[in-house]
């Protein structure tokens, strides 16, 4: 066995903090990037990676490292917004389903089935098409497809809690539904919801990149990962490997970090594994 300094809980907290810090730094760098860093210089078009340009330059001479960073921050913003919206929808849907009304429960269940019966990518394309592509369509599409699993989670959790003795007792003592919601249900739901939201985030980012790659979503002059990769496809047969390989790898790294952060939080907040 490996010797450990500190217990597992401290390790998890540190790991989560490191993941969060790296994500925050990447986001901050992308947001506060000066506009000059993104401008093209035709004299330096199509250069392979070097110390001056970490990821090389694209066919218009734009530095791919900064472009990737900017794209990642755009993706993260879309991901955060989409996971917030879908968490909100999920809470409403989950609470409605678990409110005790049979009709509401059936309606939400049916709506979930409806969303699940069309492949997500196709549904996002359709929604984006309806809203005339662009950022709004992208956000709406991703939010509309990501609430289902979280809503199921919330519903299951509320149903479980409502069956608990202390909740039943509280009701017998004459507490109102709202009081029970705030004092008994929410303290249990919030950590779960937070974890669910953080775990939705990487999915949302992946979807954003895929949809932009297909040419929906952000306009082509915007530095987004999907757009950089779809441009790289054109120069692939000419042997330009760096625009395809490196930005994509950065995206994968980002998704892995976000995923790690989510699973750390889950293990910290879930009472079943928090004391391990």
């Amino acid at each position, binding site marked *: 066995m490996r010797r450990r300094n500190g217990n597992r809980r401290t390790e998890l907290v540190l790991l989560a903090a490191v993941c969060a810090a790296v994500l925050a730094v990447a986001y901050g760098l992308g947001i506060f990037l000066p506009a000059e860093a993104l401008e093209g210089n035709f004299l330096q078009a199509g250069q392979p990676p070097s110390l001056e340009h970490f990821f090389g330059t694209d066919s218009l001479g734009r530095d791919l490292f900064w472009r990737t960073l900017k794209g990642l921050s755009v993706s993260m913003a879309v991901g955060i917004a989409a996971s917030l919206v879908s968490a909100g929808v999920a809470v409403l849907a989950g609470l409605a389903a678990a409110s005790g009304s049979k009709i509401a429960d059936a309606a939400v269940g049916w709506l979930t*089935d*409806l969303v*699940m*019966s*069309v*492949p*997500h*990518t*196709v549904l996002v*394309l*359709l*929604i*984006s*098409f*309806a*809203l*005339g592509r662009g950022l709004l369509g992208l956000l709406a599409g991703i939010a509309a497809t990501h609430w289902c699993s979280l809503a199921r989670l919330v519903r299951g959790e509320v149903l479980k809690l409502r069956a608990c003795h202390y909740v039943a007792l509280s009701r017998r003592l004459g507490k109102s539904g709202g009081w029970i919601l705030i004092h008994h249900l929410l303290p249990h739901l919030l950590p779960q919801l937070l974890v669910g939201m953080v775990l939705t985030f*990487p999915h949302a980012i*992946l979807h954003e*990149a*895929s949809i932009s*790659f*297909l*040419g*929906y979503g952000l306009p082509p002059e915007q530095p987004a990962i999907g757009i950089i*990769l779809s441009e*790289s*496809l054109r120069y*692939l*047969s000419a*042997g330009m*490997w760096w625009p*395809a*390989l490196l930005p*994509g790898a950065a*995206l*994968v790294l980002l*998704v*892995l970090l976000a*995923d790690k952060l989510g699973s750390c939080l889950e293990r910290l907040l879930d009472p079943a594994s928090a004391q391990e």
Partner: protein
Amino acid sequence: MKGTVGRLARIVAAYSIKMVLLLLAVSAVAFVLVTASPVDPVQQYVLHMGTAVSSEQREEIEDYWGVDEPPAERYLHWLSRVLHGDLGESSLYRRPVADIIGERFLNSLALMAAAWTLSSLLGFGLGCLMGRYRGRWPDRLLKSLCYILSSVPAFWLGLVLLLVFSVWLGWFPIGFSSPIGALRGEVTLGQRLYHLALPALTLSALSFSNIALHTRQKLIEVLESDYVLFARARGEGEWAILRRHGLRGVLFPALSLAFASFSELFGGSVLAETVFSYPGLGSAVAEAGLGGDVPLLLGITLFSALFVCVGNLIANLLYGVVDPKIREVQE
């Protein structure tokens, strides 16, 4: 045996009613979304045809979309045409949408079937391996691999495979479903498979980790059970236990999971087909949306929903046949 058939018939009947209702709802939602979009199907059609549109053609297309009718009637009008098999005419390809879907679905079916078989076999095999060696290095190595693969976007994996195997090594073609310039009748099966290999690999990487992790979990549950402990005490070897007790408990859950993943399969095929310019339904739906081809977009959306529902039906049936708990509940 007779009871089984009756039960399966009941599952099919119950699910079919649900499926028809869901498909109707999908058609309504899709129609509303398309109507809400700034793209006008009649305008698009005229635009793509250039000046060659006669006034009769225009009237016909306006009649198809029910231009002057109120929204609800427009939808019903369109729905009745669809139910009669008239999916409209694609403005990008200038052919009936039903023909395009039929032709491209065969291409997509080949791709998805190859990817599905590969990912099911690979997922199940690796899952069993991980469960067998739980906690040891093969398990940990494969588990990390599965987690990483589930964070990799399908289109980027496709790009990397394309780069490595087509551009650098030159083993595989850059794209399409047959050699460029070859006539349709002359393409051999070998050539088709050769063009199918990389897209199918990309698509299967998307879903096999899910199946593998699920199989691993199930197998570990089985191996920790009392009857396996008893088998071990009786002196059965590790592989014999896996063959006699493990596989039975794990095979059908994995199979129904594989059928239930038709939605991701179709979604992934949109990306994989776009990367490899493979002429299937997935690349057609992406093109249809970009080119404002409303009837094609609607047609493929409906078709994809049907595809997913059929997958779910098979998954439900498998559960009904295999899982004794569900069997009892339904009887």
